[in-house]
């Protein structure tokens, strides 16, 4: 009888264990992008898959519409709600239009976050920015200063005089300028994000400031035009062009030496972090102002009053890695 009892108990325990392991099913996290077939987002998916592998019990559903429309994303979100996914991490085509659909998702118990391109506050629990203005402002001056141990004159080639993003970054840059000894910002010119105007403004800078050691262009149009102008003026090696640019457009200029290094967010890290945060929220973490959410190897993100957080410093691209990333975006 005792044997029978023991057997019974063991079986019960074993069954309970099995049932338990069946309950710990894989969590479905949907990575919704602006449109499929864009290198930047394919790279983000790579990061998301990396996160899924690391976490083990996560299945990443990488999806998005064919064209970058809000209506297309809503259709995708509706089908994800129907599949009862555990979390949706979206890079939105429209800040406002997705809100009703995402609200519905949250009402049905799905965790919703936005990354890269945000959703209005009502439609998500948190938003992950690839970086923040202070981090970007610091990075662009650091990139120039790192190549100038003795200090020297640097100039800024911006987009338009009214570009909000660039103005904020330049302002943040000037705030941290005292930390970089010997670096003088001699001028700020505006290329209006037009290739030819940026090129001419750079030529002007080269002529006006013979001691110019670096040009900082926190715009992907400006940085390419500036690098071209420096190359054409035969100043490669004397004037270093840096700032924010796309690896695919800058690879040639890094190779030629016109640009030693530049920065932009790393889409792989972004997809990885978004997945990690979604997982943290599924696990019970709460997205509220001041909260810290875990991002695996990327550390943790701290949320501000709008439930927004910045992932990291912009990622630095130089001769060692630009080749690899130029294939991605």
């Amino acid at each position, binding site marked *: 009888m005792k044997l029978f009892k023991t057997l019974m108990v063991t079986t019960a325990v074993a069954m309970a264990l099995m049932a338990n392991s069946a309950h710990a099913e894989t969590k479905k996290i949907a990575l919704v992008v602006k449109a499929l077939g864009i290198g930047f987002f394919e790279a983000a998916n790579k990061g998301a898959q990396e996160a899924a592998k690391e976490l083990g019990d996560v299945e990443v559903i990488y999806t998005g519409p064919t064209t970058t429309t809000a*209506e297309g994303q809503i259709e995708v979100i*509706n*089908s994800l*709600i*129907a599949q009862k996914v555990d979390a949706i991490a979206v890079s939105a085509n429209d800040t*406002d239009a997705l809100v*009703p659909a995402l609200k519905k998702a949250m009402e049905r118990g799905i965790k919703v976050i936005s990354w890269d391109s945000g959703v209005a506050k009502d439609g998500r629990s948190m938003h992950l920015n690839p970086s923040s203005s202070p981090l970007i402002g610091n990075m662009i001056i650091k990139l120039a200063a790192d190549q100038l141990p003795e200090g020297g004159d640097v100039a800024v080639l911006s987009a338009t005089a009214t570009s909000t993003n660039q103005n904020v970054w330049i302002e943040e840059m000037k705030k941290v300028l005292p930390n970089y000894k010997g670096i003088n910002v001699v001028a700020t010119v505006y290329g209006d994000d037009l290739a030819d105007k940026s090129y001419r403004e750079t030529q002007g800078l080269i002529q006006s400031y013979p001691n110019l050691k670096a040009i900082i262009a926190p715009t992907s149009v400006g940085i390419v035009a500036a690098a071209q102008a420096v190359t054409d003026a035969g100043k490669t090696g004397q004037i270093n062009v840096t700032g924010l640019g796309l690896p695919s457009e800058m690879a040639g200029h890094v190779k030629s030496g016109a640009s030693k290094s530049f920065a932009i967010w790393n889409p792989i890290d972004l997809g990885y972090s978004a997945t990690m945060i979604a997982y943290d929220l599924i696990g019970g973490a709460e997205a509220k102002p001041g909260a810290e959410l875990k991002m695996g190897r990327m550390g943790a993100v701290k949320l501000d009053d709008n439930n927004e957080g910045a992932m990291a410093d912009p990622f630095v691209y130089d001769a060692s890695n630009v080749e690899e990333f130029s294939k991605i975006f």
Partner: protein
Amino acid sequence: MAEQHLSPRLIPDRLQSRSSRMLKSWESLLLVVAILIFALNSFASPYFLDPWNLSDATFNFTEKALIAFAMALVIISGEIDLSVASIIALSSTAMGLAVTMGADTPVLVLVGLGTGLFCGMVNGLLITGLGLPSIVVTIGTMSLFRGLSFIILGDKAYTGYPESFAFFGQGYVWWVFSFELALFAVCAVVFGVLLHKTNFGRTVYAIGNNQTAALFSGVRVGRVKFILFLLTGLMAGIASICLTSRLGSTRPSIALGVELEVVTMVVLGGVSILGGSGTIPGVVLAAFIMGMVTFGFGLLNVPGIVMSIFIGALLISVIALPILWSRARRRMAQ
């Protein structure tokens, strides 16, 4: 045009019984396809057969189908309206503008409908008044109407829609039946009656089959066409109200590319792109098919581009099938 007259649908074949004609009709083929897709979907995904999920899925096609009904009439009459998506954008922008001026829901609905009617009137006047080809005029107004929204809105968005306005795109009439679905059903009946049971409907077919003959038979061709474009504008206005309400916001890029999906729906529904034939039940079935295919593929996380390929292949085959069929029959008869 020669091909069209050879197709079996247009030959008045009184030798066949009513039921056998029904069986061989385009609509029965679509019904079989619809049932097949429904069955495949329920088999492929455990989430498909859920009343709420199916209800959500109807939003994929209701707004487009509302326009497709009017578009079917336009295409049957031998014309086309490619400006419908831009009319949605302009109506939506006008409603957004009205919101900023403090308008409430009833006024917003009037503004939406009014803008749609106005756009339809512009199309109708240019086409019937000046005698310009509809494809040229509506390609022009397609840019014009959306261009106006871009000028008014730029990169901004209107978001402050009143809460009661949300009913049109997010509300439910009864259980899982949304307002949009109910509207879709009502419009299907109204347009079905208009096309198949009224003199007006007969004249639309007459114009599409032979405009000159219709004219000489005393049909006021210009007036009928003008009404059709007015109707399409009105339906685009209604669709705009639904879509704007569903999105809760307006951006000039709203409903981009919808005109082609509407035309696809109409042609898939068995309406001859050359005019003269087609039915509303066919369009209703095509709407369901397109909605279910999109939703079913979505549930399986099939990339959108595969869906486009599938719809494209479906479209080409449904256009090619009757032509090939009639050729094969001719060859057999020889």
